[in-house]
């Protein structure tokens, strides 16, 4: 088998195939520098395997510690072994062959009188199917871990499994040794940071344009948070959607951001990416959104 991790080239997978080492969907990383910690903690999605979730330790607040770093949300790729639907939630038992874990997905109804509806994409989550999960970690009294899912989406392109495992290794290396190039910024490897390398922040940071995985890592200045368009959309959803059960509508987001120079495709694309990353979720319909941090 020729080539290596870098020379073998994961760069030929780009955003067009629904996954990939360089894309917003399949993997990639950004982080906050410690200098950012005092400004605002950007919520991140950390790629993990089930074993890491089960080994996670409780943090100071509601977060859990994975590999020495506090994580907000985690992303897994796993196969469903059992599904049980109840009135207001669906319970899954999933595994990625590093471990088996329970996942809870709560269903939202239109109002109190209405029976919660099972979205079409959720109905596709059957036993034996690989899915991508964005969730927060919860622990029982016996410290057994489970996941509360924001998003469980079926995987059509199983190359995403490959990319996910590589993302897990990379995230682990970054938390252990620091980001490549970090020393140039005067940061120390392993220095505590507000967030783990995440999947949310990689888009638009240069990794997608690289043609070679190793080169991409070396050349990417990954000390920023979310790309500008994602951060702008997230700000609107957080500030204007937090007080309302239904969140903020797409028309409001467009009204707020067009004057800032964003066009509609850019805004809709950013919303889609934030949905995929589990940073926001849709509420009463596909055009209203709330932040998962609310």
């Amino acid at each position, binding site marked *: 088998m020729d080539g290596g991790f870098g020379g073998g080239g994961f760069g030929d997978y780009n955003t067009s195939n629904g996954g990939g080492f360089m894309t917003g969907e399949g993997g990639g990383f950004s982080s906050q520098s410690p200098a950012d910690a005092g400004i605002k903690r950007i919520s991140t999605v950390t790629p993990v395997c089930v*074993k890491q979730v*089960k080994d996670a330790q409780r943090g100071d607040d509601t977060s859990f510690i994975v590999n020495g770093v506090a994580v907000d949300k985690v992303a897994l790729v796993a196969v469903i072994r059992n599904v049980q639907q109840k009135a207001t939630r669906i319970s899954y038992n999933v*595994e990625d*062959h*590093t471990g088996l874990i329970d996942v809870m997905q709560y269903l939202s109804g239109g109002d109190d009188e209405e029976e919660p509806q099972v979205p079409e994409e959720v109905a596709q989550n059957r036993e034996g199917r690989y899915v991508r999960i964005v969730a927060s970690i919860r622990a029982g009294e016996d410290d057994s871990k489970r996941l509360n899912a924001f998003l469980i989406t079926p995987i059509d392109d199983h190359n995403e499994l490959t990319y996910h495992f590589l993302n897990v*290794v990379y995230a682990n290396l970054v938390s252990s040794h620091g980001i490549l190039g970090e020393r140039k910024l005067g940061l120390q490897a392993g220095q505590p940071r507000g967030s783990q390398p995440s999947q949310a922040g990689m888009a638009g940071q240069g990794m997608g344009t690289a043609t070679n995985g190793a080169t991409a890592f070396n050349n990417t200045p990954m000390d920023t948070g979310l790309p500008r368009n994602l951060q702008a959309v997230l700000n609107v959803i957080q500030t204007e959607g937090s007080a309302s059960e239904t969140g903020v509508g797409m028309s409001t987001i467009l009204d707020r951001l067009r004057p800032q120079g964003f066009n509609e495709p850019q805004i809709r694309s950013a919303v889609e990416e934030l949905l995929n990353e589990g940073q926001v979720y849709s509420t009463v319909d596909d055009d209203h959104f709330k932040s998962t941090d609310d």
Partner: protein
Amino acid sequence: MDTFKARLAGSDLNDHVDETVVLVGEVLSHDGSTVVDMQAADGSNVRVIFDAAVSDLTKCIEVTGKVNADGTMTGWTMSNFGDNFDLKKYGEALKVMDAHRGIFQG
């Protein structure tokens, strides 16, 4: 951990006799019932005998099962990985994972 299953590249099956493992490969032939010959990520050929008939296989599949002493596998579960799964890159990823196996196994 009792639920851990090693993801193998193919030629390393012999090191895991009687263990439950995970193997991804390309289907070379299928007898229409329980026997599937597949080429694993490292190019080695592996015969999988499922405990029940399987059907509608895609080009690449993932098999979970037990490794037998004769180098075959007894297949318990199977997932279709489609016709566009990149087995070569998966094999490269397995090498990376193996170099950092502490992340994935206890």
